[in-house]
């Protein structure tokens, strides 16, 4: 029996670690997607941003963020965060062997590993929206604050057992806690940053600034799609028994179906309204489908999951064009994919999960958005006042690769746009 319990602990821990590794791989997905959708002269900088934010997120979350987000059972239903530094101890053998409800069934460190890659993913959402005109170090400064305080506090409210969780708000893998949170921070940043030069014309016209590398953007999307199996699948938090194993399988299937629905719906939408199959919209459609299902990837049937993804795919197309009409410049569509569709994902949970009501879901949407948007606005505002967040007009023209990184992503291709 003891061996079986140990095997189960090992399997659940292993599963957590592998799922975490898949989510870590999403960092590559974001990096490639964003690199493909910005211009060549800004590619090295956005790659640097992605590598650096991932590393910074891990460190800040280890330093203080994780403990804020998961203070432990004594703070159930809580609102005020509790600050403590560095990771606690691993599970000890005695507590494990004692069994019972309080016994741990996976490694404590594996829990940190699984959570840290989520905060990195959330922060990564911001990097695409502010691309091509933000100062690198201003961004990283914000990232440090976001990953140590802003994200963990709202994460505590739901996943850490805080007041949102107690109120009945449902968010299985993070349509709200991760995606809408990241998008809210992005929106605050973009509003204070302003649009890229030359993006919006005199009479409200939108001037396209095409991305430099469609293959990278597509590769990035597929990497994110695959990583999402860890993102949603791992959020079941266990696999080593009949029910959990079946649940994980259902989650993988629904995640995949939602993405598929998103792609097809987005592609059909753009074909209908513009007569062309815009690849970048198809890619955003896949991601929108994934975000839409993330709030509840277990309960729906595969067909419902496909439909949820499809609605996300349609919504994201209109959201992207609407934001452009409002002169909110988002080079990769991050605010639409993760924010607007994140809200959708949260609001459709009651369709398949009776533990959720539209009221509690709306409460969660409001709370997470208000907290993240307002605190982000404050932090971006302070950084803007003290250091400035935007590069100079000349640096923007030359490309931030030169001004921020001193290297070019494609040094042999000479033309400048």
């Amino acid at each position, binding site marked *: 029996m003891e061996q079986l319990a140990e095997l189960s602990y090992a399997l659940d821990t292993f599963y957590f670690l592998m799922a975490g590794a898949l989510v870590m791989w999403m960092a590559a997905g974001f990096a490639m997607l964003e690199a493909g959708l910005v211009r060549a002269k800004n590619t090295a900088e956005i790659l640097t941003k992605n590598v650096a934010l991932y590393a910074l997120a891990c460190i800040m979350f280890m330093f203080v963020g994780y403990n804020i987000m998961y203070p432990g059972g004594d703070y159930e239903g809580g609102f005020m965060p509790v600050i403590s530094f560095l990771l606690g101890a691993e599970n000890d053998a005695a507590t494990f062997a004692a069994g019972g409800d309080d016994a741990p069934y996976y490694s404590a460190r594996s829990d940190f590993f699984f959570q840290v890659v989520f905060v990195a993913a959330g922060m990564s959402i911001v990097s695409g929206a502010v691309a091509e005109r933000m100062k690198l170090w201003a961004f990283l400064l914000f990232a440090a604050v976001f990953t140590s305080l802003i994200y963990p506090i709202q994460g505590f409210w739901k996943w850490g057992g805080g007041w949102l969780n107690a109120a009945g708000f449902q968010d299985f893998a993070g349509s709200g806690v991760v995606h809408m949170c990241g998008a809210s921070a992005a929106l605050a940043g973009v509003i204070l940053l302003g649009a890229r030069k030359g993006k919006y014309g005199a009479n409200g016209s*939108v001037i396209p600034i095409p991305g430099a590398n469609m293959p990278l953007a597509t590769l990035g999307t597929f990497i994110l799609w695959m990583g999402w199996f860890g993102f949603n699948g791992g959020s079941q938090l266990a696999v080593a028994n009949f029910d959990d194993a079946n649940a994980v399988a259902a989650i993988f299937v629904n995640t995949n179906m939602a993405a598929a629905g998103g792609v097809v719906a987005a592609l059909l939408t753009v074909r209908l309204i513009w007569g062309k199959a*815009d690849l970048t919209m198809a890619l955003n459609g896949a991601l929108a489908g994934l975000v839409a299902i993330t709030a509840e990837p277990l309960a729906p049937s595969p067909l419902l999951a496909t439909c949820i993804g499809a609605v996300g795919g349609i919504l994201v197309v209109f959201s992207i064009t609407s934001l*452009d009409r409002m002169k909110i410049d988002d080079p990769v*569509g991050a605010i639409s994919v993760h924010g607007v569709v994140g809200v959708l994902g949260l609001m459709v949970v009651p369709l398949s999960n009776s533990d959720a009501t539209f009221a509690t879901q709306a409460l969660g949407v409001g709370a997470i958005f208000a907290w993240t948007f307002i605190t982000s606005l404050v932090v971006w505002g302070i950084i803007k006042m003290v250091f400035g967040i935007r590069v100079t007009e000349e640096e923007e023209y030359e490309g931030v690769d030169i001004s921020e990184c001193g290297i070019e992503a494609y040094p042999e291709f000479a033309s400048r746009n």
Partner: protein
Amino acid sequence: MKLVTAIIKPFKLEEVREALSTIGVQGMTVSEVKGFGRQKGHTELYRGAEYVVDFIPKTKIEIGIDDAQLDAVIEAITGAAGSGKIGDGKIFVTELERAVRIRTNENGPTAL
């Protein structure tokens, strides 16, 4: 001597090269350029926003030739690069004052 500059559609380059080598033209310089004449641009669409692409990619060929070859060269290029459709390109002929082969210091038509 004459300097013949031809702006042609990029995919016609191989045909033009072969046509020229058939009449004895030994070398050329090729560059990628963009331009437009009376052929207008086309519109492209990116995430719902339309934009007009005015400049069309073209290939520019420059060859230095002896005066005697001029008519044959023009006929060769026109035959190979022409398709009867808008955008076939143009040929410009200018006087070539001097030509030097760097390796041997030859001057004049023998340097071509």
